[in-house]
């Protein structure tokens, strides 16, 4: 008598096929498989949890509406991330960007994406360890395109060829955007250090004045 086989666990490919036929369980399976990653990306891009939830829901809604057209030419996660990035960028374009003037703190060399060359000013070191809170704040100040590439590459761990597919750009463009994002972040963090030093000097000065 043949031994009874345990039911085969649902794979992503099975779930996609079932979801294309409208299977509710398959939808939930795909959501549970990718939801945490998509939510993390949305949260990193917009910061506000309620906005991230809306964006995530919109991305999955689009995904499930169009899942019948998925032919597997690219990885499913890449396809999903492309939709997510499109939804996020669309929302960010509609919103007015933060009033922080990047020109005030950065003036990157557009040719190389290199740092601003302050004649006579020494390069400020970030002391080897970057404060995560400061970094998050600085990421928020990046233009959406830089922020997306930086998040996909340096946070989520995607390769440039995958990012190119997600963003609909060339690999070279992805590399260039990433480099510019990193150098801008460096300058934003350096500006934080300068501001901190200015604040400390001002506090010390006011204490001295009070002492007199």
């Amino acid at each position: 008598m043949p031994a009874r086989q345990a039911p085969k666990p649902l794979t992503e490919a099975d779930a996609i096929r079932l979801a294309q036929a409208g299977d509710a369980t398959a939808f939930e399976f795909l959501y549970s498989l990718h939801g945490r990653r998509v939510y993390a990306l949305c949260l990193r891009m917009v910061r506000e949890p309620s906005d991230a939830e809306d964006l995530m829901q919109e991305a999955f809604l689009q995904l499930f509406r169009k899942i019948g057209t998925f032919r597997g030419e690219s990885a499913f996660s890449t396809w999903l991330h492309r939709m997510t990035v499109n939804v996020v960028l669309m929302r960010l374009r509609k919103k007015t960007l933060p009033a922080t003037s990047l020109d005030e703190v950065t003036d990157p060399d557009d040719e190389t994406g290199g740092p601003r060359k302050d004649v006579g000013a020494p390069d400020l070191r970030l002391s080897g360890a970057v404060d995560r809170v400061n970094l998050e704040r600085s990421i928020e100040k990046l233009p959406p395109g830089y922020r997306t590439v930086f998040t996909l590459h340096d946070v989520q761990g995607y390769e440039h060829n995958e990012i190119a597919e997600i963003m609909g750009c060339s690999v070279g463009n992805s590399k260039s955007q990433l480099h510019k994002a990193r150098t801008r972040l460096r300058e934003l963090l350096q500006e934080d250090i300068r501001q901190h030093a200015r604040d400390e000097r001002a506090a010390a000065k006011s204490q001295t004045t009070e002492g007199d």
Partner: protein
Amino acid sequence: MRGSPQCQDVAEAIEREGLSPLPETVREHLPSCVACQGFVADLDSIVTAARQFPTEVEPPARVWISLRAQLAAEGLLREEGLATEATRGGRWWQKGWGHGFSGLLQGRALATAAVGLLIFAAGVAQLRHNSSITPPQPIVKEQPQELDPLADSGAALRTQEHELRSAQPAGTLSSSPVDDSLQKDLQTLDAFIAECEYHLKANPHDQLAREYLAGAYQQKAELLAEMMDRGRSVN
């Protein structure tokens, strides 16, 4: 200070080839340039810090609930599961409405469905409000929690329902419009209870969902009591 042609080459090489591993031209240049050493070290620190950010964050359960409701509303879900119970309720409501129930019974059914929907909508709104105040928490593996005393209430109701069915064998069940309406109210309530229990399984500490479930159990107990009373008076 960075600015020499070699320093420009460093930036271009890093842009082209990345930081890890460092391109050969960069490695050759670094020992002789303190500024570029700082530049590379800073970029490296930024990347290291970024890699410590979580790549996955558990979204609140309400996102899936809301998404599922939207999918059901758009008719994208095919399976007859928990996900479509609400839709089925809606369809019953639409079909059954014109089938000659008295105004009073229509009102009862509508009130039950409306209360369920209002509770659900208020819950979603409140949960959204709460989430905008508290930042998202990192993923925490939660131990499954017993639904006590809710679990006891659920079990007691199932026993009560079983007794009701046993007391009224299929052939003797009244098929009056009143009984039909009560049966359908019970189905609507059961669908809502199933939804709450499903949500609580995934989020055992969701106090709001527990309150909804307790309220639904209470309604079901009253409904079953009414059905038993009717059974006694009919038989």
